[in-house]
């Protein structure tokens, strides 16, 4: 592989990694606190994308960078509100339900998201061009990198940095981490655990919506978006360690590299190495790279 190929592979890897991390961040946050693997996360990510798309195409400004970011933020807000509703009506009730049924319930929620999306926006594929400064390619020497890929990478890094700061440096973050680690003791210490749960869930959903808006120009938009990204996100958080944002970041980079290298050496079998890596991790270290062992 020449230098140009290496560079392309690396950029592809990072783009995939950061895109998946954007989706996985909220998922792992919610898992860390509720211990629920939320299948519907992909659905809300998709809704966020559609909301941002609708805002940009209806209200104009699809070419402007600030409009793009604004739409992404609006999507985050919309999905966060939906998340608050979902938490109230469904997730809180799932607390008393057996694990297997919880998984099925979140899958049912995904179906609702997909159904709603199909009803409101139809079955067809839509797409959006990247906003102004990021529409072309950046040429460095021998190889060209889609400018939007750089945006995605930057966005992913920014969100990671933001989450690191939030969780590590703020009181709210400390609360979340404490409750995630030991809700019983936190409750004893007077923490309003239910409120922290709700807060974190809403944050997780907001991240899903934000990811949807930010990644809007990265791929085409269709009701199938949810299932594509959810599997990638699952892989990433399982490899990285469920409940750990750093783990998700690490897992994303690792799997991104594997995916990218895989598509280079095995172009006829896309995703094979991804699943192989997933299987290996689940067998060798099921709690993931940075996860904590949960009893047995």
């Amino acid at each position, binding site marked *: 592989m020449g230098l140009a190929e290496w560079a392309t592979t690396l950029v592809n890897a990072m783009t995939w990694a950061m895109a998946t991390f954007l989706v996985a961040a909220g998922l792992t946050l919610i898992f860390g606190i509720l211990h629920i693997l939320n299948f519907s996360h992909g659905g809300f990510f998709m809704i966020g994308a559609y909301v941002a798309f609708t805002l940009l195409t209806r209200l104009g400004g699809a070419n402007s960078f600030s409009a793009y970011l604004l739409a992404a933020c609006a999507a985050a807000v919309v999905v966060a509100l939906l998340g608050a509703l979902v938490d109230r009506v469904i997730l809180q009730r799932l607390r008393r*339900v057996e694990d297997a049924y919880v998984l099925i319930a979140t*899958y049912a929620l995904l179906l609702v998201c997909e159904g709603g*999306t199909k*009803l409101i926006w139809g079955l067809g594929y839509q797409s959006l061009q990247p906003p102004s400064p990021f529409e072309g390619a950046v040429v460095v020497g021998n190889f060209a990198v889609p400018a939007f890929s750089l945006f995605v990478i930057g966005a992913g890094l920014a969100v990671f940095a933001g989450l690191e700061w939030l969780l590590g440096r703020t009181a709210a973050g400390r609360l979340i981490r404490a409750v995630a680690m030991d809700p019983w003791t936190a409750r004893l210490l007077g923490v309003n655990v239910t409120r922290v749960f709700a807060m974190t869930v809403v944050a997780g959903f907001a991240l899903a919506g934000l990811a949807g808006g930010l990644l809007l120009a990265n791929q085409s938009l269709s009701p199938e978006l949810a299932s594509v990204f959810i*599997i990638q996100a699952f*892989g990433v958080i399982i490899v990285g360690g469920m409940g750990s944002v750093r783990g998700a970041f690490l897992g994303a980079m690792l799997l991104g590299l594997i995916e990218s290298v895989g598509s280079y050496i095995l172009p006829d079998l896309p995703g094979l190495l991804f*699943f192989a890596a997933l299987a290996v991790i689940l067998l060798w270290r099921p709690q993931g790279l940075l996860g904590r062992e949960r009893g047995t």
Partner: protein
Amino acid sequence: MMPAEARAARNRFLATLLCVVVAGAIFPSVANRGLVFIAGLLWINVVFGLAFNLLFATGGILSFGQAMFYAVGAYAASVLSLRLPELPFLWALLVSGLAGAGLAVVAGTVALRRSEGVYFAVLTLAFGELLHIVITKSTLLGRNDGLNGIRRPVIDIGMLHLDFSAGDAFYYFILVVCAFLVGVLWMVTHGAFGRALLAIRQEAQRAEFLGMPVQRYRLIAFAISGAITAVAGALAAPWLQIVTPDLARWSNSTNPILFTLLGGSGFFWGPAAGAAILSVVFYTTRTLAGIADLATGGMLLVVVLSLPGGVLGLLNAVRQRATRRHSGTEAADG
């Protein structure tokens, strides 16, 4: 179960099965071709759901990848039908079953290492998606377009010459084979192996310390489920006359989960009831995109949150209250 009780349960089951088969046999004379087509798929889906529930209710194992067996069976039967048309269809069914069992052993050996619910569910999902990728890249399997033109077979058994190639005659073959598979599943569930699985589900460690090779039994259960699902898929191939990679996708894996939860996983016939209800739902909502998903998702949520026994559980509760009798132990199979 005392011998008398066991016999009674078996007879109850056979009676129900007979009623269902008779109803199924009469159906084509009162319904149009479109509905017969759906009914044929219904029987296949009943087996699909029941095979899933063997794992779920009896084994306590949630598999999100059943579609892989369905697809393996469907594709195996299709390839054999197109490439080796001289091979009797019954052999094709056998090969499909074996392929399903083989795939289950491979997937299960990997996935069952972590039979903790979430991990197993995701692993089976991943396996299913992997198979989907392999199918879309395989020229033998028709890549994204799949394989079409699969003819309904002509079957010769001894002196019997059964021509299912014309009209909807194949419907009856599907009905008979599915009834047989349902019987096999009932037998597995209610025999010593089913008892062992149930024990493993309730208290795996105790089972282990009694000398049960827990992982091996789970693998066997997975293989049985996989084999039967594959045969169901093999029946679907000539019925649909076209097989596409969609059969291996996650959305097909969730169908048996939907049937089972909706009908009630605690009842043997639960998945059948769920399959029937969902057939109606899918049929009546087929024109408006998205309604089916909404309706199905909504129903599932209702079931999980307030009606864990599913439709059959609801009916059972209503019946018990209606007869105002106190039953000592709850009947766990219908």
